[in-house]
C-alpha cells in the first residue's frame, strides 16, 4: 500500500477551509494565527498524542501558475494540509489524536468545512479519512523502528559514547562489572519524551534561500 513504508504510515490530508466572507479575520488566517503560537516541542499536540515522528500543517491558498503556455487556474477553496509520518495504523493514530488533544484539534480543524469535532471519536476519524489523499510514493529512511525505539536509541547512543570515552584502558574484570551496571542503569532510565531538546526560534525562519 503506497501510504505505508514498513511499519510507518504516511498520512496526507486536505481539509477544505470554510470560505465565509463575513468572517473577520478569515478562517484561513485564524488557522495560521493559531498555528503560529502552537508549541512545537514536547507541548505539541503531536508530542502529547502517541506515534508521530514528523508532522506539518500547511494552509494551501491556491495551486501555482507556472506561466505560459500552461493554463492559469485557481482553487475554489483553500485547504489545510496535514502531512504526518507515524507508527501503526490510521484508525488507531487518528483515535489517539482525538483522545489526547481534542481541544487543539478543534481549534485547528474547527475552521474547516463539515468538521464534526474531536469529541465524537468515530465521526472525527471518518471526517479525516474523507479528507485523505492516497500517497503515490512514500519514502521513509528508517521504516522498521517505532518512535519509542528511536528515542531510546538516540538516548543510548549518547550514553554509550560517554561510557566508552570514560572506560578506555580499564582492566577487563572491572570493565565487565561496570558495563553490566551501565546497561542496567540505562534500561531503568526514562526515555526522553518526543519533541524535547529543540531550541526555540524566536523568529520563524526557513525561507527558500536558507
Amino acid at each position: 500500500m503506497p501510504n505505508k513504508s514498513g511499519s510507518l504510515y504516511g498520512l496526507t490530508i486536505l481539509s477544505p477551509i470554510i470560505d465565509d466572507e463575513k468572517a473577520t479575520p478569515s478562517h484561513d488566517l485564524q488557522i495560521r494565527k493559531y498555528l503560529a503560537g502552537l508549541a512545537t516541542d514536547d507541548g505539541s499536540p503531536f508530542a502529547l498524542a502517541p506515534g508521530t515522528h514528523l508532522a506539518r500543517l500547511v494552509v494551501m491558498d491556491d495551486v501555482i501558475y507556472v506561466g505560459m503556455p500552461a493554463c492559469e487556474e485557481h482553487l475554489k477553496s483553500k485547504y489545510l494540509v496535514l502531512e504526518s509520518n507515524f507508527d501503526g495504523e490510521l484508525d488507531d493514530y487518528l483515535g489517539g489524536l482525538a483522545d489526547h488533544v481534542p481541544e487543539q484539534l478543534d481549534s485547528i480543524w474547527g475552521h474547516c468545512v463539515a468538521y464534526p469535532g474531536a469529541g465524537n471519536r468515530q465521526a472525527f476519524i471518518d471526517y479525516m479519512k474523507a479528507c485523505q489523499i492516497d500517497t503515490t510514493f512514500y519514502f521513509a529512511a528508517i521504516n522498521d523502528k517505532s518512535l519509542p525505539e528511536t528515542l531510546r536509541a538516540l538516548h543510548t547512543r549518547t550514553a554509550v559514547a560517554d561510557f566508552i570515552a570514560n572506560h578506555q584502558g580499564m582492566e577487563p574484570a572491572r570493565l565487565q562489572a561496570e558495563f553490566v551496571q551501565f546497561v542496567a542503569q540505562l534500561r531503568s532510565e526514562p526515555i526522553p519524551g518526543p519533541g524535547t531538546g529543540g531550541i526555540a526560534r524566536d523568529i520563524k525562519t526557513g525561507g527558500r534561500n536558507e
Partner: protein
Amino acid sequence: MSNINGKVYAMNAITPMKPWKTWILRGFFFVLGRVKPLQQDLINLSFIEFARWVVLPRRGFPFLGNGQKREELQYDYLLFFSNFNGTWNQYIDAFSAVLSRGLNLIWRWSEKFPGSVPVTPFKNYIAQVQFDTDYYYTAYPRATANDLKSAHIVQTSLDALSLRAQDYTPAQFAEAYLHFVIQVQAHLGETGDAPVVF
C-alpha cells in the same frame, strides 16, 4: 511560516500536470516502489528522513458539501513533501547532482519543468512551485537522519553484547567489548542544536 524545526526542513511543492501524463508517472512510481535497487540513490542521500509524492487528480480534491464549491480544474497536480536535514540550497544541489535522472523522470510530466540540470533554472522552478509550512513538528529536533541510523546501529550492538556480558570470563568480555567498540565507533557522537543558518 516555519519551514525549519531543529535540524529538519519541511519542503512543500505543487506542480500542474496534464491528466494523461499522470498515468505515466503513476506507472513510474509503481515500478520504483517495487524495485528496491531503483531507490538506492534516494537512500544514499542520507539527509532525507521522510519524503512523499502525491498525485492529486483534478477531480480528487476532497469535497464535503456544506457550502463548499466543487473544484473545476484542468490539471492534475503533483504534491511533493520532503523532510530533510541541511539547507534548501544544499538539498536542491544534492538532488540535482545525484538524482537528476530520477528527478527528471518524476517531474518531466509537470508543466514547464526545465530539467534538474543545469541547477539554476531547476532552483528557480522549485522556488516558484514551493509553498511554505505553517506549523512543523519533529519528535527528535536535535537529530539528523544519519543520527537516527547510527543510533539504531549502536542500540542493536549494545543489546547483543549485553545479552552475554555476564556469562563471559573477563578475558572473553574484553575481546567482545573491543569488537563492540569497533562496530559502533563510527556511529558515536552526540545530537545537538542545529547550526544557525543565515
